[in-house]
Each structure stands twice: as C-alpha cells, then as structure tokens.
C-alpha cells in the first residue's frame, strides 16, 4: 500500500512567478511527514506538485522530478488523473459536495471512477467512515446532506472521502486549521492510526501538532518577498525540534519569526 516518494530538483511556477525552487527530499512510506514554515513559503504549492494538482491552476507549471517508487509522476505518458487517484488529498477548508448525501460524498470517488455494486459500496463507505472516526456520529443519517455536518465532522468526512478510493499516499494541507481543539485531536488520532497503511504528508502551522503527529519534519523558508521558497532542512521530528541543524529553523520553531 504505502509507497515512498522521491523528489529531486523541483521548481514550481505560477506563470512567471517562481514559487518554490530546487526542492529535493525523500518521503518515507508508513510515516507522517510534516511541512512547516512561514506563510507564503510554498508549502501548499509543493504539496500540490506531489499529486499533480498544481497544474490545475491556469498558467502553473512544474520542473524537476517526482518519483513514486520507481515511476516518474511527471513522465510524458503519465495520466495526471491516475496520479491523483493514487495520491489523495485533504484540503484546508472542508469541502464536501453540497448536492450529495454523506453516503454519496464518501462513495463519490468510487462512483465517479467506476462501477461498484451496492454491497461493495456499503462496505467501503462504512470502513472509510470508521477509518475517519466518523461512523458512530453519522451512521443513522447517511442519507442527509454532507453540508449539514459541523466543520470538524465535514473535515473528517473529507478524509473518509479521500481514503475511500484507497490511495497510497495521503496529502493534507492544514487539515485542522478550521477546527476546534477537540476535532483537531480527533484528526490527529486519526492521522496516527492511518499511518499504518498510508504515507502521510501534512502541512501545519501548529508546531505542537507537527511535534505530536509527525515522524519527519521539513522546514521551508523564503529569502524575501517575491523570492522562491526553499527547503531549509528535513530530519527526524525529534531532532528538528530539539537540535535543528540550521539557525533559521531554530528561530522559526522558537517563535522568533514567522
């Protein structure tokens, strides 16, 4: 299931603006990797290059290599749609489909991609909702609209929707930033349990959260306004938070800037 991602010499552009530059890193399978860094340094941009969501933005493009195991995701005959099926994503703001029920939201990725029997779907929906820690709260109202849930429940619904298609990697862009502390804890627990099966990458502004949930931490920074963001360092989370290799990392973590 879980697979390793290898990035080398990656640049990403929005039109003429270079948002990130020269990123090289390895993301290990069955671990949680956290991306931290000041606002605007390109964490979201980098995350979106990993499943080819970056190019959805008009004028955006990517240079460099991203490899999932041995396959180049930006190879000439790779279908971006199948990349996104393999590498799932959870967004900062919960975005359930407003026209669909809770059940249909979770089943959306499967239904929109192929044919499944009702009983297969039932099974996957139940296991995904259980996986996202939401089953007990919604099992009696699966036919109600997904937009009728609380923010935290909606975000867990989006996680259930993402894991229902059985991706090999799960990317999460500040999944808790719109949530209360209790929902945040629920999602952190969820991340810890999901890491048995998935490679997980999470962007967060919350240092404690990065320290709590992640095994590896990558720190991004940018030299100045209008400059591209860069990877400063990446290491075991415990090392980054206790004894970082770079001065900038220490300054950021201890709250001296950013």
């Amino acid at each position, binding site marked *: 299931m879980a697979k390793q991602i290898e990035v080398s010499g990656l640049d990403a552009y929005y039109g003429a603006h270079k948002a990130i530059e020269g990123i090289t890193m390895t993301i290990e399978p069955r671990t949680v990797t956290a991306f931290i860094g000041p606002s605007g340094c390109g964490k979201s941009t980098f995350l979106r290059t990993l499943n080819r*969501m970056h190019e959805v933005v008009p004028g955006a493009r990517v240079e460099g290599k991203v490899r999932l195991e041995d396959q180049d995701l930006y190879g000439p005959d790779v279908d971006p749609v199948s990349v996104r099926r393999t590498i799932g*994503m959870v967004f900062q703001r919960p*975005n359930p*489909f407003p026209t*669909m029920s809770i059940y249909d939201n979770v089943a959306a*990725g499967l239904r*929109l*991609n192929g044919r499944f029997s009702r009983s297969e779907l039932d099974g996957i929906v139940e296991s995904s909702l259980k996986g996202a820690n939401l089953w007990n709260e919604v099992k009696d109202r699966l036919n109600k609209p997904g937009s009728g849930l609380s923010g935290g429940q909606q975000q867990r619904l989006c996680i259930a929707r993402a894991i229902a*298609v059985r991706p090999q990697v799960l990317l999460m862009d500040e999944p808790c930033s719109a949530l209360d502390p209790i929902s945040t804890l629920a999602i952190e627990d969820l991340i810890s349990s999901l890491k048995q099966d998935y490679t997980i990458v999470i962007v967060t502004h919350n240092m404690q959260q990065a320290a709590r949930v992640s095994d590896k931490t990558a720190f991004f920074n940018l030299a100045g306004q209008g400059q591209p963001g860069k990877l400063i360092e990446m290491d075991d989370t415990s090392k980054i938070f206790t004894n970082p290799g770079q001065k900038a990392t220490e300054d950021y973590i201890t709250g001296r800037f950013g």
Partner: protein
Amino acid sequence: MTTVQTGIQPISTSRRVKDRVVQALVYLAFAIAVVPLLSVLWLVVKNGLARFDLEFLTHSMRNIGARDAGGGAYHAIIGTLEQVLFASLIAVPIGLLTAVYLVEYGSGGRLSRWISFFVDVMTGVPSVVSGLFVLAFWVLALGMPFSGFAGAMALSILMMPVVVRSAEEMLRLVPNDLREASYALGVPKWRTIVKVVLPTAFTGIVTGVMLAVARVAGETAPLLLTVFFTDSINNNPFNGPQMGLPLYVFDQAGRPTDTAIDRAWTGALTLILIVMLLNLVARLIAWWRSPAKRGS
C-alpha cells in the same frame, strides 16, 4: 461628555434625513414598478375570465366567423406548447454547452472572448429579425414549409443568449474548491463537470431556462413570419402553418366584435397561466433535486 471621551457619536441629523429620503425613494420606485404589473394582471384576469371555459380550452377557431360566439384557442395552445418545447430542445443544450465551454474550458482565451461577444450581440437582436432570418434561410432559401418547427428555430435564437448568460453566471458561482476536491479524488475533468459542477448549479440553471422560456413564449413577430397562421388544429410541428397564443391574441384583438375581443383576453390569460405553470413545474423539479429536501 462621554461622546468626546470615547469618540463614539450619535447618528447625525443629516444622515437620518438622507436615510429617510432614500428609503422613501426606494419604496416609491418599488410602487411604480409594481403598479403596472398588478394592473395588467388584474385587467387580464377580469376580462379573460368571461371566456375561460372548457370550450375555449378544447376547441379551435375553425368555421367560426369573426362575429360568432364560441370558439377557442386549443390550436394555439398546442402550437405554443410545441413551439416552446422545440425551441427549448434546441436552445438549452447549445446554450448550456456554450456556458460550460466559457466557464470551464475557455478561460479567457481568444475563442471564448469572441463567443462572449456574439452572445452579447445575440441578446440585442430584435425578435422580428430572428423571424426574418428563419424565413429567409429556412423557408425561402431551403424551400421548407411554414411550420411550428420553423417558429421554434426563431424562438431558439432568442432563447440561446439568455440561457448562456444565466447558466454562465450560475457555473461561475460554483466554488473552485469543489472542482479541486473532485480532481483530487482522481475524477477526470469532464466527469467533474457532469457530476459535481452541473448538479451544484442545477437550481440556478433551471431558473435561467425558465426565464428564457417565459421570454419567448410571448413572442409574436417571429411566429408571424415562420409558423404563419391558421384557425385549425395542426398537431404536426414539422409541416404546415400552426398557431401560437400570442398570434391568437394578436389576431382576435384585431377583430371588431366583442366576442373576439373576449377571446383575445382569455388567450392572454391562458398564456400567462401556461408560463406560470411551467415556472411552478421547474421550481418543483429544482426543489425535488435540492439537498434541502432531504433535510439537514
């Protein structure tokens, strides 16, 4: 004085006065807009009810002279329903696909700017010109007969820009988050549009289509040039002159007798009722499709 200390001051008199004046102006404008609407409705209902009976709804004007009582608008009702139906069948798919292209694929390119420009031009085409166009192209150049379908083509030219503009507006309102959520699940773009974007915009699109239908259902001039005119029932929209309610009203109102004038009023009332009924049906469909129905 507390006002000096905190800097928070009471509403000044001049602002109060301005508020009142603008409020009065808005209410006045509202009244001016509503009075003609209500008076038209009232007149039509008052004068139309006299002949609003079963005979009117089930009989044509065949063999009924200008001075005779009786007669009805069955042939015109059938004609209007068929013409509007076929006009919608032509205009809605084309209009909807155009809007989808403009919003989802065009992204400000040269082609989409040209299409936008021509849609604007089409919005301004006087209805009689669309009738003339079909007359010249379909009837005179291609030698096709006058028919309900020819009328539907003329009406569809009038419907299309309305459908495009309203659908475009609705599609733009669909949050980009939803498209991205769908892409991130590995759903191709076209399926995202069909399964996520269009259903989300569905209610608004239906409303826009109904506006377009209401606009063309009352058109007279293009029908005169394309479906021509008849007093008999013609169920076949593809061959031979048909009637339409606006034509019927126009015709009856031009006759000198009270019985004909009464028929004209009732025809107008029937037209209004048909448009209202179609609107109601569309709203029911939209409500039935909306998630709100399932409760939250």
